């Protein structure tokens, strides 16, 4: 019978030691190859250490919580045959390890891999130049004393203007640079400093927005979920429909399609078309889908509501959207047209950005944010093809909606938008 020593593997670049967090075996336990023996934790990750051999555990080299240096013996295993009592864990080249890293599952440690060649030198074969002899041109001109002061002050001398001959940085230059930290940078000529402040009272709509946002942000634990939607087909359909629209029909934006998609999805997930009275502790699910449309107006954000979206066709919804937007912007919207929504859509159109973190329109439990459509290269398995991609950034009230349900909801909306025919197919 022989003995096999397992040492702490090199668990990562520059890691000299790791903390032992778990033993899966104790002395006397039989072990099989690839069985996990222990787990160690570096500041980056927890790594499991599998057995490279079959045998019986003889000795454990550390207790849980101990910090063990790389290459220090971790445990000894009695094995059949000659054994390798003094054979360290397989040596692996640094370069080889790095190359493997991506392909290995995280729990696999270098121990289970076969020994590899000595480290291939990643540097030039020639002598290593001292660091100070490279990049002469880029280095600031300053005496050693000035350089030392800069190092200690954490100043990158390349940021300091030198007033001396050939741009040499003097102690005075460094002093000036250090002193400037407390005051604004020197004023370029022609521009003057401004002083004074202006107080603006928050009233009216702004005050209502502020109160609503405070309420929503302080009461609702938001979970925001962002997904990419390929709207190429939808955009094609929209363009075709717009080209063929009858006189008097409004131009279709993406919103009526989204409203129809939401209506279909909410029929399957009524829990999201809901309002939550958190004081009473009651969630009210709504049969009707009243879609609030966050709309920018000259006086601020308002949310006109497309009522009974479930009963509106695409064109109908589009017409109602156009009417409400106009009314909201003109300030002629009626009070009931600005309240009573059960779910909200927010869109900044061309300013939609990549991602938003929408704030839920209290007391609703969900808000769907539309980000801008951009043509992006998409890998189709053989080549990159241009596709129109739009992100949906949606927030949910995490008290009521679990992350899973939120994800299912958004994925369903996505499926409908990606294959827009599904929006219109009955059943």
């Amino acid at each position: 019978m022989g003995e096999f020593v397992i040492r702490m593997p090199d668990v990562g670049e520059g890691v000299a030691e790791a903390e032992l967090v778990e033993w899966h075996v104790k002395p006397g336990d039989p072990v099989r190859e690839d069985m996990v023996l222990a787990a160690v934790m570096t500041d980056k990750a927890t790594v499991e250490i599998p057995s490279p051999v079959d045998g019986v555990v003889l000795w454990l080299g550390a207790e849980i919580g101990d910090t063990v240096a790389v290459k220090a013996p971790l445990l000894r295993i009695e094995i059949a045959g000659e054994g390798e009592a003094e054979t360290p864990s397989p040596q692996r080249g640094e370069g080889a390890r790095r190359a493997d890293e991506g392909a290995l599952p995280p729990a696999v440690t270098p121990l289970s891999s076969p020994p590899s060649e000595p480290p291939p030198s990643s540097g030039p074969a020639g002598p290593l130049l001292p660091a100070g002899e490279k990049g002469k041109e880029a280095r600031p001109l300053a005496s050693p004393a000035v350089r030392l002061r800069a190092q200690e002050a954490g100043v990158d001398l390349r940021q300091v203007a030198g007033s001396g001959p050939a741009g040499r940085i003097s102690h005075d230059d460094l002093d000036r640079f250090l002193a400037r930290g407390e005051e604004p940078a020197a004023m370029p000529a022609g521009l003057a400093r401004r002083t004074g402040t202006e107080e603006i009272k928050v009233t009216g709509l702004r005050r209502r927005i502020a109160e609503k946002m405070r309420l929503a942000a302080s009461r609702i634990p938001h979970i925001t979920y962002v997904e990419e939607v390929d709207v190429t087909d939808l955009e094609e359909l929209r363009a075709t429909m717009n080209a063929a629209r009858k006189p008097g029909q409004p131009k279709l934006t993406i919103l009526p399609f989204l409203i129809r998609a939401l209506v279909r999805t909410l029929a399957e997930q009524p829990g999201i078309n809901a309002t939550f009275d958190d004081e009473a502790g009651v969630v009210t699910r709504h049969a009707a889908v009243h879609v609030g449309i966050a709309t920018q107006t000259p006086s601020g954000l308002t949310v006109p509501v497309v009522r009974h979206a479930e009963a509106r066709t695409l064109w109908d919804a589009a017409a109602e959207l156009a009417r409400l937007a106009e009314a909201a912007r003109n300030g002629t919207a009626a009070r009931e047209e600005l309240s009573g929504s059960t779910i909200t859509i927010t869109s900044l159109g061309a300013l939609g950005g990549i991602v938003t973190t929408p704030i839920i329109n209290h007391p609703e439990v969900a808000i769907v944010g539309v980000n801008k459509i951009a043509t992006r290269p998409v890998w189709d398995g053989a080549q990159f093809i241009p596709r129109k991609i739009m992100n949906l950034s949606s927030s949910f009230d995490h008290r009521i909606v679990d992350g899973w349900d939120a994800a299912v909801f958004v994925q369903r909306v996505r499926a409908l938008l990606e294959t827009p025919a599904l929006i219109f197919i009955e059943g």
Partner: protein
Amino acid sequence: MKEIVCKLLVIGAGPGGYISAIRAGQLGVDTVIVEAAKAGGTCLNVGCIPSKALIHAAEEFDKVRHMTAPNALGITVEAPRLDLAQTMRWKDGIVGRLNSGVLGLLRKAKVKIVHGEARFRDGKTVEVETETGSQIIRAETVVIATGSEPVELAALPFGGPVLSSTGALALTEVPQRLAVVGGGYIGLELGTAFAKLGAAVTVVEAARQVLPLYDAELVRPVLKRLGELGVRVLTGAKAKAYADGALAVETDAGKEERIAADKVLVTVGRRPRTEGWGLEELDLDRAGRFIRIDERCRTSMRGVYAIGDVTGEPMLAHRAMAQGEMVAEIVAGRRRVWDKRAIPAVCFTDPEIVTAGLSPEEARAQGHEIRVGLFPFNANGRAMTTQSEDGFVRAVARADTNLVLGLQAVGAGVSELSAAFSLALEMGARLEDIAGTIHAHPTRSEGLQEAAMKALGHALHI
């Protein structure tokens, strides 16, 4: 087994290691240094110091030897005799004084010294075989300063008549005929010394030029002097083997030549000492043969630093010392980064060569428009009065800003100019700074001022 736990462990007490340990000690870092041989490393024991002692003795002997005939100075002496064994005792005395000096400095800095061969057990633990048994040292931070050793040629293994530089520095008799394989600075320094002591010296160099790292202009006065000393220089030649009192050489022309030699000194370079002490266990990244370091001398393993010859060229004691000092300060928690502008280098040939910064060729290769000023020592009063007018001082500067990029000199005693050279480069001097600084008369340093003036177009003495 005894165990020591410390904050900093320095492996190797050469110039890099002992400086690092002393500085760390000064800064209150609990430090242990391990040395297998004598404190001071290659430099102090078998390198810079003993070779300079031998070179000095050879110069003195050579001077006196030339006073047996009537001469310009009007001094005549009886034929001098040399007792090389005594010379070596004197040299060993100096080495011994410096050895104990280093140990004293380490003790004064409260550094614990462990004598013995260190061996890595893991990233932070070293086992040392001492006279009194095995000793385990655990440290938070480790500095590898194991240095370098002479490269051996497979065809000419060290031993018997084939000497490394260490062997040559221990000779007690001057060989009648000495072949030097490798015409770098070590080979030429020792070859010149033995020629002055009376040996018939042949230098065999594989490159086109001896001192291949220096430009031809700088090397020319050295070649001239080698000729005067009767040293034969074969360039483009390869040493093949040594047998029956002769070194077989393949000459530049492809012919085989046998060079009669009682001793063969092999000085074909030095290689980093990276084997035999468990470094393999650490699996550190390499840069060629050397341990790869970054601008803070950190290796690829956290808490493990490397300094000196084991980290690359130039393999010079003062580079290792500067690195050692910097690492000690980093370990003590100070913010430091390697930002040296120049590492001066000196060849103690006859005449001496000193360089700092870029040669004209190197500066041009880096894309600089340059101006070069050269002042010859035959226009320098001090040089004339010391009977050594060969050589010059040369200044290389950017043409646009006159920023000094490099300074070189060749001539008797010019090694001491290295202070002015590297100071000028570190301070970011322009030619005007050097030209505008009063240099004492009569000294060779006036050559530096004149070279700067020459580059500016207004030298006064040529």
